[in-house]
């Protein structure tokens, strides 16, 4: 196994220097998620303004994959419309659940493409999705949340 195929430089960078970390006010939705297999957890808040995700703030503990994925998440959704952010989420979830067989679209996923290698390790897919589960759940609590509420991440 090539360790670097999972731990891309981008992932290690986000892990060591996470973007947007810390819980901030004000927010419209908040979610606490825990990964039952490892006990890791994340608390994530979303602020929506003018139909756009104006801030994502979070804190928690977890492995490099979960921490990096949440950091990338903030980059991917902040400043985008709710609709766009959900489309990005769908693309990321599809990539992660593709067992390494889905070709990621860099235009949509940006740094998120670095997680393509993680998708080959089923035990780590939950790590990469932990922050996204929280995002989806927090978003569902906002006025724009209907589609988020109806999305299932397994």
């Amino acid at each position: 196994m090539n360790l670097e195929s999972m731990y891309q430089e981008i992932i290690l960078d986000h892990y060591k220097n996470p973007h947007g970390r810390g819980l901030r006010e004000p927010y419209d939705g908040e979610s606490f998620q825990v990964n039952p297999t490892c006990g890791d957890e994340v608390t994530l808040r979303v602020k929506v303004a003018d139909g756009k995700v104006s801030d994502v703030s979070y804190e928690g503990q977890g492995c490099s994959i979960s921490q990096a994925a949440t950091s990338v998440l903030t980059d991917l959704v902040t400043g985008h419309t709710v609709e766009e952010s959900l489309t990005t989420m769908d693309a990321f979830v599809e990539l992660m659940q593709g067992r390494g067989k889905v070709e990621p679209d860099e235009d949509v996923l940006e740094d998120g493409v670095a997680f393509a290698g993680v998708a080959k390790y089923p035990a780590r897919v939950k790590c990469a999705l932990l922050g996204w589960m929280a995002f989806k759940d927090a978003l569902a609590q906002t006025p724009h949340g209907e589609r988020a509420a109806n999305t299932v991440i397994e």
Partner: protein
Amino acid sequence: MTTTVSGGTPDSLPLDVAAVRADFPILSRTVRDGKPLVYLDSGATSQRPVQVLDAERRFLETANAAVHRGAHQLAEEATDAYEDARARIAEFVGVVPGELVFTKNATEGINLVAYAMSNAVTAGPEMERFTVGPGDEVVITEMEHHANLVPWQQLCQRTGATLRWFGVTDEGRLDLSNIDELITERTKLVAFTHQSNVLGTINPVRTLVERARQVGALTLLDACQSVPHSPVDFAALGVDFAVFSGHKMLAPSGIGVLYGRRKLLEAMPPFLTGGSMIEMVRMEGSTFAPPPQRFEAGVPMTSQAVGLGAAVEYLSVVGMDRVAAHEHALTERALAELTAVPGVRVIGPTDMESRGGAVSFVIDGVHPHDASQVLDSLGVAVRVGHHCAWPLHRRLGVPATVRASFYLYNELSEVDALVAGVREAQRFFGADRP
């Protein structure tokens, strides 16, 4: 074994590991692009020797039939094989066959007792000694596996009884300082693990059993991590109930064992009901067979029992003393080497006093799951997470740990591979530079 076990080999382990390893086909496979498999996850599930695989297959190719139900030759042979296995396993843990119930795993065995206790309420006056309700207490410990924790929470939820528990010291030992306040006249049952699957800690069974007896409480021993690894005699320990799982002791998955003192099993209401456990069935009501049949509803795990019988025979030929001594040597080496690595902290006792072969640890700056990923890339299979002992991890202030666990087929060089892997994980994540 293909050769007999020698009294001491050049690498100074108490048994001939090479001969043992030759019996386990899976140990010669490679993982992750050709790395030899270093299997240090026997605490989760063990591997199976050909002797066990062959015993099960031989049974299926020659004698398979529904047991206790048929009058033809196959049914006779199958029943004999099943009951012979029960007798052999009973002897292995120092009890008589009638005291031994086959379950699908240890978890079912614990649930069986917990449900029998809540069933007792509606099962008639002679079941009174098992009933629990408001005011009654069940005592467990903070180091239990979820299997010996959640069923008791649920029993209390069903019945209104109260759950109480022993704490754990910073060193990972049971805190017995308040034993007399915890185990009291209100206590109906004390359930505790023989050996922690996380810490390796071996608990003082006698102390707990003595106190429980003083107040007339029943005891249940979770022997999942002791029976596979050392000589255990339930009768000598004096516990009322005990459970263990086949898959952790070279035997098939899908089979576990509940031991119960004969008088208790005879008095206990059934749990799972259906075929083979009845005495008389009418639409209006049923009566039940004596134990152990009363607790074995439906077609049982026949070939799996035969496999467990073969596993017990395999372990007996090696000798459980030798198995224990072998793991002792491996654990001692692992503790010595791991504690010598800067940034590594072992969770649980670091000496060999009352301690078995599970070694859990954390690495500063490297998440356990990331560490195990590095180990996996080197062929070293360990387990990470809370190991189904989440409250224990919370108590010790760590969300998760890396756990290496040993068995009779592990070698000293595999301990070295583990430690090398830990150092590599530190290097990979830049945690080797302070």
